[in-house]
């Protein structure tokens, strides 16, 4: 067996590895889609669950997840984008900046269940927010921060230095340069980062287990201090805690969650590739 045979066999092996990674993804999406689409109807996504959640729809859970995602966006975007502007444009290369970077790496690595414990300890109990939307939103927002900061920083750094120097040479202050030149140029990348962060928040279960999630609440929340049902938690509950749950309802819930998350993912991919092609530098 000569070298070129070895290479051929090797490349076939690598191709098989890549297929082994990708194929199961398609299988998961395919099975959830085929099984879930059977139960899909207008009633399923617009009605309140009844008969011990076995009948009716999952409307409150959908609204809950959308509310949590929206709230997370409101809390996490200013802090996340501000943090990335600081790191990309203002931070000097000193120990303080390294500490911030280390903090971000660690925030990204903290297990989601530990965020749940933190949210319970700080927001729910210590700050007396109770199990509420606001406690969950704050927990999710802190969890989302590292994703938003690191992707936005990358987007800001990819804007060439010349853009800043030209702005400064025309008499603009540093902030004017950032606001009018750098941020608009980096915006597509920042939006992509925000969507990727929010997508993670929308799909997470562990951080909301003890901070927001209601087991069964067949009405919509009235205030930020209400509990709310959420899709990921609802899927967990009906697939493990409720005996005799029809499988089709479980698959249907999984499908709605998957569609929500994948469409966000799709939008992020489209924005990124569209602007990458249009970029003039």
């Amino acid at each position, binding site marked *: 067996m000569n*070298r070129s045979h070895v290479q051929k066999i090797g490349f076939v092996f690598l191709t098989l590895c890549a297929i*082994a990674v990708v194929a199961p993804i398609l299988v998961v999406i395919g099975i959830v889609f085929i099984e879930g689409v059977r139960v899909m109807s207008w009633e399923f996504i617009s009605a309140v669950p009844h008969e011990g959640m076995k009948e009716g729809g999952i409307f409150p859970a959908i609204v809950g997840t959308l509310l949590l995602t929206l709230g997370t966006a409101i809390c996490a975007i200013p802090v996340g984008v501000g943090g990335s502007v600081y790191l990309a444009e203002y931070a000097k290369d000193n120990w303080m900046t390294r500490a911030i970077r280390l903090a971000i*790496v*660690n925030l990204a690595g903290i297990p989601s269940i*530990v965020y749940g*414990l933190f949210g319970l300890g700080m927001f729910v109990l210590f700050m007396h927010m109770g199990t509420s939307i606001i406690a969950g939103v704050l927990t999710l927002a802190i969890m989302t921060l590292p994703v938003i900061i690191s992707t936005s920083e990358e987007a800001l750094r990819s804007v060439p230095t010349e853009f800043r*120097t030209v702005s400064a040479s025309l008499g603009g202050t540093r902030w004017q340069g950032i606001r009018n030149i750098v941020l608009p140029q980096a915006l597509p990348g920042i939006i992509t980062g925000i969507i990727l962060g929010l997508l993670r928040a929308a799909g997470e279960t562990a951080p909301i287990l003890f901070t927001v999630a209601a087991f069964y609440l067949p009405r919509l929340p009235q205030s930020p201090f209400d509990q709310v049902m959420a899709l990921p938690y609802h899927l967990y509950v009906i697939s493990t805690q409720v005996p005799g749950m029809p499988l089709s309802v479980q698959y249907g819930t999984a499908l709605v969650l998957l569609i929500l998350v994948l469409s966000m993912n799709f939008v992020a991919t489209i924005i990124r590739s569209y602007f990458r092609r249009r970029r003039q530098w």
Partner: protein
Amino acid sequence: MNFNLAPNESSTLTMEKPKAERSTWSEFLVESSIRVVGFSTIGFVVLIFLFLLREGLPIFYEVSPGNIFGTRWYPTFDIFGSLPLILGSAYVTVASILIALPLGVCTAVFVREVAPQWTREILKPLIEVLAGIPSVVLGFFGMHVIAPLVRTNLDAPTGLTAFTGALLLAYMSLPTIISVAEDALDAVPKSYRDAALAMGATKWQTIWRIVVPAARSGIATAVMLGMGRAIGETMAVMMVTGNAARMPLSFNSLFMPVRTMTATIAAEMGEVASGSVHYHALFGIGIMLFILTFFINLVAAKAIFKKRYRGGLR
């Protein structure tokens, strides 16, 4: 801290800045708040650790060390041996890395070195989709599709085993491993490849004898980050590993139920009274998880920063 209006940082900006400052109060306000926000991340890490300590530290004097690090976890009888949980987490994590490392590195090599452009453009978004699938959906899929397969194929009494969990975890850490390993391969200078090819090596020999060894520290980082992801994963693991708190000590344990630290917190926290010993014990496990992932990420971050300073040349 320097909240000066004209910060004399070493950027090109300052050199070309006109003498007359036209900054206004609002600008000062914006720049200060950006600084505050920048530093806030450190505050969040500290806050998280403080609150874990506040709620979890009592367990270390409420209960004897022999009890905490014992081999039996029966909270209802005040037996809080965390060893089976720690070992359970370690067992599942190591098993998942054994699956994910070869698969991830080979896929990264394929994407970066071998695949034609169009294949790459299909593979990369798909891998990103995998990163986006919520863990509870994967856990649900694992319960209903993978666990029955494991049970029938291995003739085991249950399909909810450490192996099922490791399989799911492997796929959940693959996106991290692949993208970090890809960056590492990308950072290997083209001249290395050119030199090897010029010496008459095939592409295959170049990859495995030159490129991958040159990228090994980046690949090690990929594995560390993948491990961090796997240890912290909660929902999928809780749904498919069977959650029996026993010591996984032999190879056979791979095909028996285990229980991880994360699953224990998630499953039991809902039922305990806040302030009870059991409550403190669960926060104690949280402290252990925090410290564990902190050090894993510290090691990984060291490697990442080093790469940045050396400009990717190893």
